[in-house]
């Protein structure tokens, strides 16, 4: 491979990697806010994304609603669904047994329920394509070719992340969320309603997953199994340290770029391996993740 081609591949890989990486970053963010505040990895995150994708598809294509209405309804439905799951199902599971394992199993249950529901409706029987809401005309940035849709994806993801970080860092609600993650007992003692905050966090995580679904769906074929894309969100979260929100974002971009570069420089078949190699490298060289701090053993 000559230098010219290598440079071209590099630019293309970084450009495409930033685009898909921004979606992985959103997914990682959705995973990490739940984990950080409740120490439960949500194994239904991918299916929440998939279900939201189908809700959008149904509203936009089958009901022929305008894009703005479909998008906002999808986000609202995802927020409400996730919040309701936390409020109703997880509260009951936690009441029945204090073991976190049961909560994790409940999230696994949710993933199968959502897959089953989508299959039940029949929409998930055949792979479907999600209409692109932004033109797919390509334009050149340097020597990299990207579409307007790509730029819209990256731009939207960055705006959503910026809004989230502002909320988390500078509002009263965000401060309450951080307090619950840092010290739930102290949070209760200053008057934070843990249930309410957890419910909002799940809702937000669902809404972010829905936005990720809207962004990624036009670039994939939709099936009931498309939730597996969340594996890359988990990969991003692990690379970033799993409890770090900035880490989740950086991890998302790293996974996206590594994936694209491996596809261009090695082989497109190697793409699926790339994130796992990245995880293993991080786990071996820096087990706490790129942004993970010290590991704290909690006193129960």
């Amino acid at each position, binding site marked *: 491979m000559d230098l010219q081609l290598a440079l071209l591949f590099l630019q293309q890989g970084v450009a495409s990697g930033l685009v898909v990486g921004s979606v992985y970053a959103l997914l990682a963010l959705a995973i990490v806010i739940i984990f950080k505040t409740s120490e439960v990895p949500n194994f239904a995150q991918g299916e929440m994304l998939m279900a939201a994708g189908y809700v959008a598809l149904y509203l936009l294509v089958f009901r022929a609603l305008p894009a703005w209405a479909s998008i906002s309804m999808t986000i609202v439905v995802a927020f409400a669904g996730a919040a309701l799951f936390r409020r109703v199902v997880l509260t009951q599971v936690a009441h029945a047994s204090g073991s976190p394992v049961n909560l994790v199993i409940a999230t696994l249950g949710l993933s199968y329920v959502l897959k089953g529901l989508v299959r039940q409706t029949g929409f998930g029987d055949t792979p479907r394509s999600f209409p692109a809401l932004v033109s797919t005309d390509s334009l050149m940035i340097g020597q990299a070719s990207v579409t307007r849709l790509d730029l819209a994806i990256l731009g939207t993801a960055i705006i959503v992340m910026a809004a989230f970080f502002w909320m988390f860092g500078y509002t009263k609600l965000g*401060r*309450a969320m951080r307090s619950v993650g840092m010290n739930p007992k102290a949070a209760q*003692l*200053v*008057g*934070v*309603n843990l249930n309410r905050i957890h419910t909002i966090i799940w809702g937000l995580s669902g809404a972010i997953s829905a936005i990720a679904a809207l962004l990624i769906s036009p670039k994939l074929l939709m099936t009931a199994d498309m939730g597996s894309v969340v594996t890359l969100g988990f990969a991003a979260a692990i690379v970033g340290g799993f409890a770090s929100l900035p880490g989740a974002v950086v991890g998302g971009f790293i996974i996206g770029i590594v994936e694209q570069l491996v596809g261009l420089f090695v082989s497109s078949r190697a793409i699926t391996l790339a994130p796992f190699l990245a995880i293993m490298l991080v786990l071996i060289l820096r087990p706490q993740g790129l942004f993970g701090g010290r590991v704290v053993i909690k006193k129960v």
Partner: protein
Amino acid sequence: MPDLLEVEGISASYGRIQALSNVSLRMPAGSIVALLGGNGAGKTTTLNTISRLVPLTAGSIRFEGQPLNRLQSHHVVRAGISQVPEGREVFRDMSVRENLDMGAYGRSDPAGVRSDLERAFTYFPVLRDRLKQKAGTLSGGEQQMLLIARALMARPRLLLLDEPSLGLSPVLVQKIFDIIARLHADGLSILLVEQNAAVALAASQYAYILENGEIVLEGASDALRQDEAIKRTYLGS
């Protein structure tokens, strides 16, 4: 007129372990009442049942005549009871300022919160110089001060203080208890949990002694300080 706090025959348990049985205590408004006892006697559990972190299995708690039994922890704070938990339960990765803001979480009177922040600085001037510092990087004594200041930010009428002397040097203990005396002089009622009985009896008007989850003795603090059995068991003389 009812007492400020009336705890009547409360019991609580962690799983099958009975932590409190039939504990009753009363405190009039404007008093400092001490709750003494050894490790595991149930002192912290008593505070946590009042704060509604630990469920009651029997008995009742009334604050200003109103029952707390059915309230949740966040309601208790709004009702006027703040707890200063034992140990270093600050929000470590938040700044001192954010910790204090969290103390005022349930309030929606910004002007009142601002004036209470100024008031907190009159008790703990050192916090004003540490506003931007992460709470986890404060010294032990400063963290204890931040915890008390954070609880004050809710403008409580009853302060539950759990082991404020824990892990502090005698000089700092003296400093903290001077501030407790000032808070009391300014009208705050305080339920004080301590292992350091000498300091607690000196600071309080009335005291209860817990053993294995039961009240075994109670009386005016001055009288208890003269009691031979108390001296042997708790005052180490």
